């Protein structure tokens, strides 16, 4: 293995060794959401004419799991190794900032997809999923995970304490995820909040992802792809720049 492949492998091994906590636990959480919201709201909420609420909810929950776990992977790995001091083993190596970037974001994508896949398999037992356009599903899952993995990298570099990390997660990542249409279609919102939702890049990740399942969505998947792709470029530029200057890791 080359240098970046080793770092990628090490980061995957890190979450895989504690997969009960990093993969199984988030799958259980998502299934609980599905059982409770699906049970309570199934008969009350209708979003698209052809799609039941439970079926509508599944892709949203899958994507939410992908995004949250991709973020959690790079951010927790960096903050832990910064505070424990074991980041020094990577800092002493000849690895370039691109190697760091690819390894940390790549392993976050791997964890996001592992958890998302787990959620999908379990929830498929409760619903009859459809796959109108599987390629769109994959594209949005990977791009969404990459964006959140990069945001986790940025947060992990920025934060110096665990409470700063918790603040980033609770005040930025959680609201943007929940207000993106995981549990509802934004068409059901008043016009003002529809407008606000359109400013949230997370909305396009979930809407595009859902298009892959049902072939219907709030906006065109091509528009979603353009927004999500641009968002990835912007966060990647920031993340790789911070690694290049050694922000908060080399003084």
């Amino acid at each position: 293995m080359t240098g970046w492949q080793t770092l990628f492998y090490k980061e995957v091994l890190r979450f895989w060794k504690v997969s009960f906590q990093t993969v199984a636990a988030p799958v259980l959480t998502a299934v609980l959401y599905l059982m409770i919201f699906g049970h309570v709201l199934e008969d009350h909420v209708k979003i698209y004419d052809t799609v039941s609420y439970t079926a509508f909810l599944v892709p949203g929950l899958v994507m939410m799991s992908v995004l949250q776990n991709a973020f959690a992977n790079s951010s927790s790995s960096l903050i832990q190794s910064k505070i424990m001091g074991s980041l020094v083993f990577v800092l002493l190596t000849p690895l370039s900032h691109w190697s760091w970037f690819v390894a940390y974001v790549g392993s976050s994508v791997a964890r996001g997809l592992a958890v998302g896949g787990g959620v999908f398999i379990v929830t498929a037992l409760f619903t009859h999923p459809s796959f109108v356009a599987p390629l769109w599903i994959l594209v949005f899952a990977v791009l969404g995970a990459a964006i959140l993995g990069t945001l986790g990298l940025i947060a992990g570099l920025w934060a110096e304490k665990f409470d700063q990390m918790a603040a980033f997660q609770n005040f930025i990542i959680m609201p943007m995820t929940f207000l993106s249409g995981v549990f509802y279609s934004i068409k059901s919102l008043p016009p003002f909040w529809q407008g606000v939702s359109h400013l949230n890049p997370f909305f396009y990740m979930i809407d595009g992802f859902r298009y892959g399942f049902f072939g219907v969505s709030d906006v065109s998947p091509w528009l979603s792809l353009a927004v999500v792709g641009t968002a990835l470029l912007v966060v990647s530029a920031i993340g790789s720049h911070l690694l290049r200057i050694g922000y908060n890791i080399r003084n």
Partner: protein
Amino acid sequence: MHAISFQSVSKTYNTAKGPFKALDGVSFDIEQGEFFGLLGPNGAGKTTLISILAGLSRPTQGRVTVHGSDVQADYAQARRQLGVVPQELVFDPFFNVREALRIQSGYFGVKNNDDWIDELLSSLGLSDKANANMRQLSGGMKRRVLVAQALVHKPPVIVLDEPTAGVDVELRQTLWQFIARLNKQGHTVLLTTHYLEEAEALCGRIAMLKAGRIVALDRTSELLKAASSNVLRFKIDSELPPHLASRARVTGRIVQFPAHNAREIEQYLAAIREAGLQAEDVEIRKADLEDVFLDVMAAEHPLQMAV
């Protein structure tokens, strides 16, 4: 080509109390194959200098090269030449010893490294811990793993930042035998330590750092020669008069006077007798590196010895 070259290295930290100069124009070279000691009290700048060498920190001014490669501009090449044992006892709790060493090899692009890893494990007395998780190891064992991790890529230059702080006698012996063997095979060794005895025994040349500046730099034998050659040592039960106390090193009951010749020793003993004091366990010993170190650190304007 120098193994390591520090060229006018300065480092200023911005602190709440204003800028703090941790290093102030440090320049010296270490040749290939040397066993070099870097000494100084806490806060003198030793670890800052090592951090800049290792690329963990950037100099405010100046440059550092390892085998000719600049540690910033050509960091990848410089870091391949360096094996750094960090001062802090850090470890990655997710892995066992062998996994940690394989991963560290991989970062340097070294493949199929198990033969060398086995040799490192056995030389450092870690063979039976190869499959133990890092969390289960004692402090001394973790320290050995840190040394092994620094050497997985067979670096020509080895940097040890206080490797024996808080380490038992057995490990110190194992470690020094191993490092001395690597040095004989041609590896350059840069060592910072608080144990002056170790530095005296191991290092061919020594630099002393005080408040971010080099205050002494010479062959260990020359440093010892430059110091007062003998030390008069005895024990007393009462206070020394002030004119004697200012020239003595006092540790509890033990009093030590640096002396250049027999006459000085006689004068000290006469002064003690005149003061009506009773000296016990009187002995005269040769000066060691600790005496040199204390002399240099105590001097207000230390002489820049041969650089």
